[in-house]
């Protein structure tokens, strides 16, 4: 396994696009969060806003880059035919997928953690400037706050799980174009469909099973009792999606001719 890990790490490291995609993830996570926190204004008493979640809005955009990153890690090998070289060098296919998952997921986790830290820092500075001050009953964002810490760790994990989800789908579908369409469709369709369905119980159920709608509840820090699914359970739903897709991807890798 350690050889497989080393091999996958070397492959990913020497791919020219990797650095740019990872920088893109970082930039989008921090950037969109900063734009959002820079545009909200304190609107007087009674304003209740989840400042942590607001600062971490960038995740909703950067997950698209994470999906590209993970899909390329597998789909790129299929479209170039390199997968045959890989599987000749490492015939145990589950090991190959496992190594890919660890390397891709780990790298995403690291970059995601850096992005989340940057987004929270930007949010802390910008929100204070926009009137969300202690005088108005808001405390500055800090990892010392339990729910904020949970949201921060959870957001980085969220990105890593999205990477695994994408990896599994890419291994199952092989064609990178179709895989990226499927991943982004899966992520963004749920919230859009949920937005249209006004039947309360349908609405709630869809929110509970959508990989993005459920997974991002990990970012909620206020009014957590009113969520359709509790933060960690929501992240668990995404983890189930990731495990399921990796399972499908692994089966496709093992059963089909390379």
């Amino acid at each position, binding site marked *: 396994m350690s050889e497989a890990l080393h091999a996958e790490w070397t492959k990913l490291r020497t791919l020219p696009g990797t650095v740019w995609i990872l920088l893109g993830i970082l930039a989008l996570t921090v950037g969109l969060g900063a*734009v*959002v926190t820079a*545009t*909200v204004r304190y*609107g*007087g*008493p*009674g*304003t*209740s*806003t*989840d400042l942590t*979640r*607001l600062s971490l*809005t960038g995740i*909703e*955009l950067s997950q*698209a*880059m994470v*999906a*590209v990153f993970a*899909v*390329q890690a597998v*789909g790129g090998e299929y*479209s170039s035919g390199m997968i045959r070289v890989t599987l000749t060098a490492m015939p145990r296919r589950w090991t190959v997928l496992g190594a890919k998952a660890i390397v891709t997921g780990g790298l995403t986790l690291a970059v995601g953690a850096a992005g989340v830290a940057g987004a929270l820092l930007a949010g802390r500075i910008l929100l204070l400037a926009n009137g969300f001050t202690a005088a108005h009953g808001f405390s500055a964002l800090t990892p010392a706050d339990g729910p904020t810490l949970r949201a921060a760790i959870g957001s980085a994990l969220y990105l890593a799980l999205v990477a695994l989800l994408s990896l599994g789908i890419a291994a199952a579908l092989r*064609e*990178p*174009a*179709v895989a*990226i*369409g499927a991943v*982004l*469709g899966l992520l*963004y*369709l749920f*919230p*859009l*469909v949920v*937005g*249209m*369905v*006004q*039947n309360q119980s*349908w*609405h709630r159920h869809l929110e509970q099973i959508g990989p993005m709608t459920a997974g991002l509840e990990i970012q909620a820090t206020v009014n957590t009792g009113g969520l359709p699914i509790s933060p960690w359970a929501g992240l668990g739903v995404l983890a189930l999606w990731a495990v399921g897709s990796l399972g499908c991807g692994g089966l496709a890798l093992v059963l089909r001719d390379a």
Partner: protein
Amino acid sequence: MTTATVPPPYRSDLKLGNDGFVQLLHAEWTKFRTVRGWVVAAAVAVAVMALISISAATGGKGANCVNGKCQRGPSDPIGPYGVSVTDSFYFVHQTLDGDGSITARISSLTDAIQPDPQGQGGAPPAGASVPWAKAGIIVKQSTTLGSQYAAVMATVGNGVRMQYNYEHDVAGNLGAASSASPAWLRLVRSGTTLTGYDSADGTHWTEIGTADLTGLASTVQVGLFATSPGYNDNQYVFGGLNSDSFNSLATAQFDNLALGGGWSGDAWNGDAIGGADGQYQQTGSGFTVQGGNGDITPDVPDDDTARLALSGAFAGLIALIVIAAMFMTTEYRRGLLRTTLAASPRRGRVLAAKAVVVGAVSFAVGLVAAAVSVPVFNRLWSPDAFYPVGALTEARVVLGTAALLAVVAVFTLALATLMRRSTAVITTVIILVIMPYFLATTSVLTPGPSDWLLRLTPAAGFAIQQTIPRFAQLTNVYTPTDGFYPLAPWSGFAVLCAYTAVALGAALLVLRRRDA
């Protein structure tokens, strides 16, 4: 060793047809239809689009439905155009038979926002005002709710206006009415035509506009009115809108009342129409009229059939983006483009043919999905369940949605020509087209940034799906989350087309310059 005899140059006797643009289109269409995956994906696009639209319909609720039974309630009067309206004001009136006129001077119009009676929402913020609080003179078919009318009025924040039949609003020539600068208003009835005038001094009159109220009865109710829509304190927070409503009461001082024509000469009647608050006092030749908790405007419905029946468009769009990207990137991936360009060396035509094919396929996907989902939707819901849009609007939404899919597909094709990598192209298009729509309509962003996203990004094109009209004279929450796009349907679509045109131009330039 040289061959002794060189054969004569070869002449083919093969019959060749034309090799114009039509043949090129035929070739590109053959390319498209012979890859089974693409045909399947187009079918999937139709299926997801129709399925999501239909499930949005079954999971949704009709605007006027209670426990699955849909009909308009008595509080929803139907206006002269067959759509529901708000018709609620305090009316001081007399009967006029035949032609005539009414003139009045407003020397003051004030509006008082009432504190929340339950005290839950607290007090309205300091400096709050209701710009559309109004008072003036009105000619109305009858006191029946939703009947035809024409009115000339002073408003708190929008100067003198002439409004008629709920949807029409014409600006007058004067600003806010006060004792220092009173507003003289006049309304002249001649048959079914009503003409509004205003004047600063009662001698020099300026026409504001005329209204033709088709079928106006000979006997009409004419008089003074006042009403105020109240104040909404809207706060946008993450995840939605917090809105506190406050009633308000408009108070207007009328004098110099002059009547001409066939007036009944009865006493003035004061009536609160449509559940409005209000009262009046007559002091000599003057009147004080108060009215609140109402308005005379069109209704803005929650949703409508045409829009909901096509709400799955973005789902079909993702499938079409993938197809359009691959239609170009597969040419690059294995060098197939060289074969294509050897067969058709005029590169601009090749790009055009590809764009036409991928655009036509997407347009067809949109039309077929609409042909499936609109009838199903109409069967699921009674016609009263949603805001009835006209046939023209419905056609615009159906064709416009299909055109939206087509233009996004062509945009994708152009970017694919520039970028050549399918994952990069698909992600870029989804980030440019779907993401802004997602961010703006799911309450992730506040209305300001949301509006800008839907103005500046290609996602502006989704405005083509807007059916619910937007009225300046109606205080309402016009945000993307509520189905209101910041741009008019065709301007939004034009933004998308502009992006596509630029991308196509760049693609053409690059395709011509770059070695294949």
